[in-house]
């Protein structure tokens, strides 16, 4: 099976934690429990700025759980407990003094199934900005976000129409635009194209590569080809016998897919399981 692998930087993502300026966000000893169930253990990851990092692994290995821990979305589920640290530009976002509301403004999220609000296209984008106290010109912001999400040309004449009338792919790009409007610096994407057809998927992938110039992107995907196509770094997670997820290998995409260090990684990417 031929995978097109993205040429990435040679240095390992885990090199020198000295300059935390290199990394937009890092996890240290991250453990997450749902009630009594140990969902993921000892996750150590560092996400380079302005790069796309993919998290792959078989279903149920905790990819989404790790992703959602990066902007404290896990807490919305009652009974969740998180130990360890998630360092955002050096500061632990799980510090009791930190308000999750503030975290989520800076670390945005796009979900697997597009979930636009049942409002107009314009309002979908303006709402987030407004509650966050946006001081500028809303119309300008809406246009800018839609352009950045490669959706402007398709919807510029129908901004007041309900967002629910758009196609699946368009809705997902709208959700991306909505996320961009509040100007986060990290965008988390949870299998953003899994519900879309191949053409729409391609559009989203192109968009992500474009966005990586200005944002740090972390994407969870079960599609290995996608991961190898667009990401700079890849983390591979697995479950142990107790169904707890753990990190197997984390390297530049090129290295992980062409010369994986761990046999389990090799088995997974060659399709022997998963």
């Amino acid at each position: 099976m031929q995978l097109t692998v993205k040429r990435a930087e040679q240095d390992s993502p885990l090199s020198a934690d000295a300059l935390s300026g290199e990394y937009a966000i890092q996890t240290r000893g991250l453990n997450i429990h749902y009630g009594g169930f140990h969902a993921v253990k000892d996750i150590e990851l560092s996400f380079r700025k302005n790069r796309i990092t993919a998290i792959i692994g078989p279903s149920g290995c905790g990819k989404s759980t790790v992703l959602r821990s990066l902007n404290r979305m896990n807490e919305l589920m009652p009974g969740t407990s998180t130990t360890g640290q998630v360092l955002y530009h050096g500061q632990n976002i799980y510090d009791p003094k930190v308000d999750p509301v503030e975290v989520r403004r800076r670390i945005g999220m796009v979900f697997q199934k597009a979930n636009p609000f049942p409002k107009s296209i314009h309002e979908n984008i303006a709402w987030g900005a407004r509650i966050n106290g946006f001081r500028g010109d809303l119309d300008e912001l809406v246009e800018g976000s839609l352009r950045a999400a490669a959706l402007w040309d398709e919807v510029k004449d129908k901004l007041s129409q309900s967002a629910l009338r758009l196609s699946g792919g368009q809705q997902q790009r709208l959700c991306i635009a909505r996320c961009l409007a509040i100007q986060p610096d990290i965008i988390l994407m949870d299998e953003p194209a899994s519900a879309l057809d191949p053409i729409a998927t391609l559009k989203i992938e192109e968009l992500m590569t474009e966005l990586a110039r200005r944002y740090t992107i972390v994407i969870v995907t079960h599609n290995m080809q996608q991961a190898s196509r667009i990401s700079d770094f890849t983390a591979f997670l697995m479950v142990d016998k107790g169904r707890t997820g753990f990190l197997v290998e984390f390297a530049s995409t090129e290295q992980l897919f062409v010369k994986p260090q761990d046999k389990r990684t090799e088995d997974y990417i060659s399709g022997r399981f998963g």
Partner: protein
Amino acid sequence: MSQAEAKVFQPHIERRQKVGALWKLVFLLATLVGIVALAALLLTVINDSFGLVALQFEVAPASLGRDGRPLERLEPKELREILTARLSSGLIRRLESEQPLAERSRQQLYELVMERVARLQVIESWSLGESLLKRGQIRNWLQQNHPQALLKFRSWVSWRFLVQPQASVPEKAGVLTALLGSLWMILITVAVAFPLGVGAAIYLEEYARENLFTRILQVNIYNLAGVPSIIYGILGLAVFVRLLERLTSGALFRIGDPATANGRTILSAGLTLAALVLPLIIINSQEAIRAVPQSLRYSSYALGGTKWQTIWHHVLPASFDRILTGTILAVSRAIGETAPLVVVGASTFVTQHPTSIFSKFTTLPIQIYQWTARPQAEFRNVAAAAIIVLLVLLLAMNTAAILLRDRISRQRREG
């Protein structure tokens, strides 16, 4: 983060969180309003159901003594003299017809004198709150205005209250007549509405096809469920009381006194409420039947069962617990209904217990309505006592419904 960013977005997170906390409090308080209202209601009822009463003899027993002998030591002959002197001739005749005075023992005659001549009456009553907090003041007031009166603590809800019939004097009034009226009436309602309701539900869920007629039927039932209960009363008045008077008054069966018989009977009331709860029973039973999994029906068909056999032996038993619960809830709603019964003509003053379904009647809520509407304070007390009886009855019914449902569904699961 950066300076530029700080100018564009001013998230004011702390202020937003404070506003959020404030509104959360508002929402919580809104919920507490309901609880407070319920507590106030129950406390008001309890407050009026217990309290001090001032009792006084109409004729002091001491004044009935003779030659220095107190009342309790008088001879039967002397007691009889007191009775004939003090009571009306009509009353004497009635007492004589029940049991001749000459044949009554001294104890019986004494009790008769105490009950009919001396007549211990409630001249004033106080609520529980007043009784507990202003006891001294009450005592003083009583000393000044009614020095002969006794002060006693009384529970207006009592065994006697439950078994006494109606009376014009509040302290003698009881709810037995009303309870019997409610009971007779509800039996008719259930006997009519339950089979009709469940039957209609079976038809709609198991037999009816998806066509215009069925949809009209269904919409019609939903609409009926939302009609105010008083409209059902008007319906009952026009149809059961007036149109079908021959049936509901009993004239058709030659029962009852033709001079006073009319359609305002328990039968009319029961049928009116049956019409009222019918849509509720249908809707509830439909949901219960719908909840039975299709696989159960298919297994029965696969074994060669007919439609009705499947329904009777499989679907109904599977849904019976929910049907029963829903019916009991509908019935408890019917027991509390007042407006339609007033329109249909529950009597304002019924002293005799109902003897048949063609009797005039009163029900517990009607009694409460009438007592509440009277201005005298003591009627408030008996109204409150009757409310307690009604609420306890409803609580018992609802609890029974829940327990029954749990028991039946547990039986089915453990089979």
